[in-house]
Structure formats: structure tokens, C-alpha cells
């Protein structure tokens, strides 16, 4: 468990981190290290250099601005879990954070790190998709903002270029009811399937609803058909049953020693139904 040799440099500002990324080939960002360090120790990844961004204070913190929740990419899962601001502004995020790993992992691992790593069994990608988060990416020519729906490009892959850095994530902060349900892999604690759902309803009628699923497929996705089947309709158990029963239609689910594809598809349906039930009381 000894990594291949690499250089290490701690950046103290976003500019410095970007400069290091530009001036070093094969450099890799180190944030909380919860995925990267094990991979390094197993020599599954052998970058020439690690740029440690954990000391950049501007990347850390949670604030509300113009009705949006602004979360620095270096904010830990634990900080989100413990934030009263998050609890008030984004019940979905507040529901998800305590379900990540264990307390030690949550103290180390970061929001931005999890999103940028884009593990198919990661939790945050589902929430980012469900709340349609905006991800702010800094590069040589300033920043660009990408919607979550455009951010994930495949398993372990995002639109972040090699010379760019995810700096903050903006999510709606109006307190939309939301919930994250997770079926934990008994070994890793990662999501076999995780379902992030937000929904509003008014006088028995569903307003907006968003459903995002992680763990089931190589990359997290929005269950758009199920969302359309619900939006604007009167809440009923039958409606939720019907919508959830199609949530896995057409999916090519992952398969592993713990959960064959058919089981993942079953979990998607069951968990979407249960999440909707909890939010819409039906």
C-alpha cells in the first residue's frame, strides 16, 4: 500500500491551484482524498503530481445569496450535514449528507470532490441532478457555470478539463421538500441505488417534481418520464405507483456480485415510489 512516487504541492488560492494545473502535466487535484488516496495506495492511479486544495479557505463554506445556496467545493459532507442553513434551504441535501460513508469519511470528504469524481455509486450526483445545481468551474479564462444535467459525461467523467477546478456549487435555496433514499452496499456503504427526489404539492395537486437516481447505471440520471407522469396531476397512491413502476424502463443497469441488474432496476422502482410517498404523503 505504497503509492508510486509523485510530487506534492499545496495551493493556497484558486489562482495558484490553476497555475499549478497549467504548469504540470498529469497533475491531480487532492481535496478530501476519500477516493483518491485509496486509488493511489493501490497504484491504480499514478499521477505525477498532487495539488492539495484543502488549504484554500475560499473553497470552503456555505452561504445564501439571492435565494440560492452557495456551497464551496471544498466544503465537507459533515459541514453540510451540520448546517442549519442547508437544513432550511435544501431538505434534500440535508437528508443526503448524513447518509454518506461514516463520520470519519464525512469529516474528510468534500462536496466538490464527490461531484468531480463522479463515482457511479456516489451520492451527491443524484442530489445535484435533482436540484439542478449549477456548478462553477474556474479556468485560465475565468469561470464558467454548468448545469448538473450537462456536468456528468460518463462513469467517473465530467466536463471539467484537466486545467480547470470546480470551485462552487449553487443550488436552489427555497426549501423545496426533498428526500434521499439510499440502499447501501453492505460492504462499501456506497449506494447500490440512491434516489433523490424533490416535490411540491398544493391542494392535493403535484407542482414540480424531480427524480434523480444514482448507483443504478454508470452515470446518475434524471427519471424524466416519471417526472412528467406526475407533474400537475392530483396526488394519489395509484398515480405514484404507476409513475414509479416505469422509473426503470429502458435502463441498462449495472451488475455486480452484490446486485444484479434486475435487482437494481427493482430498487429504482421501489425507492422512487417510497421517496414520492414520503414527500407527497400517498
Amino acid at each position, binding site marked *: 500500500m505504497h503509492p508510486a512516487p509523485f510530487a506534492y504541492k499545496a495551493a493556497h488560492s484558486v489562482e495558484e491551484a490553476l497555475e499549478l494545473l497549467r504548469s504540470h502535466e498529469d497533475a*491531480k487535484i487532492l481535496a478530501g482524498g476519500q477516493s*483518491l488516496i485509496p*486509488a493511489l495506495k*493501490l*497504484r*491504480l*492511479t499514478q*499521477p505525477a503530481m498532487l495539488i492539495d486544495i484543502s488549504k484554500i479557505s475560499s473553497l470552503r463554506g456555505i452561504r445564501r445569496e439571492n435565494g440560492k445556496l452557495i456551497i464551496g467545493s471544498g466544503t465537507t459532507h459533515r459541514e453540510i450535514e451540520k448546517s442549519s442553513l442547508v437544513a432550511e434551504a435544501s431538505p434534500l441535501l440535508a437528508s443526503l449528507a448524513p447518509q454518506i460513508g461514516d463520520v470519519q469519511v464525512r469529516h474528510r470528504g468534500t462536496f466538490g470532490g464527490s461531484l468531480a469524481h*463522479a463515482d*457511479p*455509486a456516489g451520492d451527491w450526483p443524484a442530489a445535484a441532478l435533482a436540484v439542478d445545481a449549477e456548478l462553477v468551474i474556474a479556468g485560465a479564462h475565468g469561470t464558467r457555470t454548468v448545469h448538473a444535467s450537462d456536468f456528468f459525461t*460518463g*462513469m*467517473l*467523467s465530467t466536463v471539467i478539463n484537466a486545467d480547470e477546478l470546480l470551485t462552487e456549487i449553487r443550488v436552489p435555496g427555497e426549501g423545496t421538500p426533498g428526500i434521499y433514499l439510499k440502499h447501501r452496499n453492505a460492504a462499501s456503504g456506497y449506494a447500490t441505488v440512491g434516489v433523490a427526489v424533490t416535490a411540491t404539492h398544493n391542494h392535493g395537486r403535484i407542482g414540480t417534481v424531480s427524480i434523480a437516481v444514482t448507483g443504478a447505471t*454508470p452515470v446518475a440520471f434524471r427519471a424524466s418520464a416519471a417526472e412528467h407522469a406526475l407533474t400537475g396531476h392530483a396526488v394519489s397512491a395509484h398515480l405514484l405507483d404507476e409513475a414509479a413502476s416505469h422509473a426503470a424502463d429502458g435502463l441498462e443497469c*449495472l*451488475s*455486480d*456480485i452484490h446486485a444484479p441488474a434486475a435487482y437494481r432496476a427493482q430498487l429504482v422502482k421501489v425507492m422512487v415510489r417510497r421517496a414520492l410517498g414520503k414527500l407527497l404523503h400517498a
Partner: protein
Amino acid sequence: MRIDGTFSFNANREKVWDVLLDPEALKACIPGCQSMTLTGENTYVITLTVGIAQFKGTYDGNVSIQDAHRPDQYEIHVDGKGRPGWVRGVGKIRLVDAANGTTTVEVEGDATIGGPVFSIGSRFVPPAAKLLMGQFFNAMKKRVEGSAS
């Protein structure tokens, strides 16, 4: 491990065949191909640096094309090893006429994979294999259709 896929090419079978089996095209389109040297008829020694995101490894191996019947079908045999592990596999590739002069390429792959990476990260391997196959054929598709125009 089964790796199957279907890819459509906007060209006739002969044209697709010639590109798919062109050593230059192979070299250009095999993901992470560092070097590829002909060592015998339809047999190559190859070095790849391949993986997903930062999980990359370098593999040395042999690739051979066997049982080739232009423009219908061929087999591609792969045998490689590197620090992360080893792979042996056979892909059966069939070229089928489709509508409007296009060609459908059907791939039936059967690969055996092993070594440390598989023991620790087996959950990533099947989707990664599928992804790499997609990258290969999409690159080929660009090449076929690019040169067709």
C-alpha cells in the same frame, strides 16, 4: 464477461471493412494506443495506456485478426497484461447490410479479465469495457464517414 454492442456506419460493408481492418485506423482508434507493430499476418504487438478518468494503466499485448471473410465477419483476439491486470478476449464482429447503403456492425465479445484491478474494482470493469468499445467504434465511425464524404 460479455461485451456486446451494435454500431451503425453510414457506408457500405466493403468500405467499413477496409477501415476497420486498416492498421493505421486501428492504431488511431484503439483507445490509448501508444504503439502497434505488425509482427505477422494480421498480428500486432501493441502497447496501450488505457483506463477511465485517472484510473489508467499501461498494457502490453498481442492483437490478431482471425477468420476474416471480407466483408462479412472477422474475429479479433486480444491478449494483454500490465500492472493493473490482464485481459484475454475474443470479439466476433459481423458486418450486416442495413437500410440506405449503411452498415450495422454487430459485436459479440467475450473477455476474461483478472489481476489486482479486477479484485479491487470489479464493479468498474464491465462498464469501462463497454465505454472503451464505444470509444473505439465511434472513432472508427468518424473515420469511415469522414473519408466517405
